């Protein structure tokens, strides 16, 4: 029974990690840029949910409709202003996005004066039991949302013309240009979508965690681990990678030591990065990000 419990905990945790990472995965895979401030986009989603609750009394699951488009716009602005000018310089991207991270974290800190918020939801807190296992609605919603999002994203990339153009850009930018695809605009839109997905994660996570400006930091490294493990640009990779990370953390936390669980999936991340940079499902891998200079 214990194992089943851990399994469920791990899968639900994997849902969280997957949802946070799915946007990053898309961005990484298509645009091949590092955004260290991705965790802060999730954080903004969380605070956005709080704002919707505090000003409009909205339940977070409704606030999704406001916050997600807002984060889409934020993403577009960030890409245009900060990342597009630095498209060829990965070192500067690290600095710029780190600077953004510091700005966002501390801006929220300054505005909220360090007060911790929580976002109540009528539905989220319910738990129900399946046999001996207890499941919280909020975590289940995240798991379902991740699954739905992954399927939707997959279909979008596979079936729609815009989705196909995004895949084309991922594979060969010059050839994409020759098709008439505006590569720069594709990047911006992709970044917007990735940010919107981060916002979605943030909103859905807001009933679970107490909000704090630094909470993005909890997720960003996990998100990198998931992305590398699953494989750049692969939706399935983000999905299953998230599951694996969640399961590893749950099992390691139980069998080895809860304090070491972060270190353990980090070590896994490092091992994957070194041994199989393509990840489990990726088409192009970490090594390509630096090696293959595309323009």
């Amino acid at each position, binding site marked *: 029974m214990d194992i089943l419990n851990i399994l469920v905990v791990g899968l639900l945790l994997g849902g969280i990690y997957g949802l946070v990472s799915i946007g990053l995965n898309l961005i990484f895979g298509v645009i091949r840029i590092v955004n260290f401030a991705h965790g802060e986009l999730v954080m903004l989603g969380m605070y956005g949910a709080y704002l919707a609750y505090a000003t409009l009394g909205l339940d977070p699951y409704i606030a999704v409709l406001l916050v997600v488009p807002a984060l889409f716009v934020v993403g577009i602005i960030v890409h245009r202003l900060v990342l597009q000018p630095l498209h060829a310089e990965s070192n500067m991207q690290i600095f710029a996005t780190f600077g953004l991270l510091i700005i966002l974290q501390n801006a929220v800190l300054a505005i909220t004066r360090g007060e911790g918020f929580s976002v109540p939801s009528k539905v989220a807190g319910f738990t129900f039991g399946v046999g001996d296992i207890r499941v919280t609605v909020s975590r289940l919603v995240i798991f379902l949302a991740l699954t739905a999002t992954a399927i939707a994203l997959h279909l979008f990339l596979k079936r729609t013309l815009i989705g*196909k153009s995004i*895949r*084309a850009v991922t594979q060969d930018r*010059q050839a994409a*240009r*020759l*098709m008439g695809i505006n*590569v720069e605009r594709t990047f911006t839109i992709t970044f917007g979508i990735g940010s919107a997905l981060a916002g979605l994660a943030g909103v859905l996570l807001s009933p679970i965690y107490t909000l704090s400006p630094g909470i993005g930091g909890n997720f960003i490294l996990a998100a990198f681990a998931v992305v590398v493990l699953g494989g750049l640009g692969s939706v399935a990779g983000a999905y299953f990678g998230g599951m694996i990370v969640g399961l590893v953390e749950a099992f390691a936390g139980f069998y080895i030591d809860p304090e070491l669980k972060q270190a353990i999936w980090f070590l896994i991340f490092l091992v994957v990065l070194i041994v199989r940079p393509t990840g489990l499902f990726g088409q192009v891998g970490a090594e390509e990000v630096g090696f293959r200079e595309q323009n």
Partner: protein
Amino acid sequence: MSRLLTVENVSSGYGLTPVLRGVSMHVDTGEVVAVVGANGVGKSTLLRTITGLVHPTGGDITFDGVHITGLPAHRIVSHGLAMVPEGGRLFTFMTVMENLELGAFNPTSREDTQQSLHEVMELFPILRERRAQRAGSLSGGERQMCAIARALMSRPRMLMLDEPSLGLSPVMLEKVFDLIRMVVASRDVTVLLIEQNVADALEMANRAYVIEHGVIAKTGPGAEMLHDPDIQRAYMGL
């Protein structure tokens, strides 16, 4: 016959390295024009400059009466100018069908996608057979065929080919050149091709240019250049 493409005194290069130094040439409707020369003299750069992948540092390019100098590549294809890059550069992780669909992506040709698909698969039946296959799994000749088909999907007035014979066996090479001839015959499309394979290119071309060290060294009708002893000595090992 009217002037379709005019390249006037164009200089171009990568970073600080100049490759083309004042190249002037033109293509008229219905022609097949070849630009030949040794490796690295600037043939590819010429095509890539015309198609907007490289920005010229000087000169002017006019296509179908429109100044396209300095336009970004993704805009140029809407004007009716399509290029088959070196090696085809198919999207290898996507299917043949998806590659073809993307060929028609640009706004001018997008609504005719279905019609274009039909025409193109009529021209190259094997692509209909392979349409659900990943482009990366095609053979060399099939890939080149798919790349040409993809370029035709944008319903271009002019088709540019960058070294279509590259990496192909002599048999495949013949097939590809036959394909190009067929395309010219059945579609109202003008062709500009660059080639290291001088003999085959000159055989196909109405007119040809020889590039050496970034400038045009010689020009004339294809047949004449084919039998020019200087060219034969320099490029055809005769």
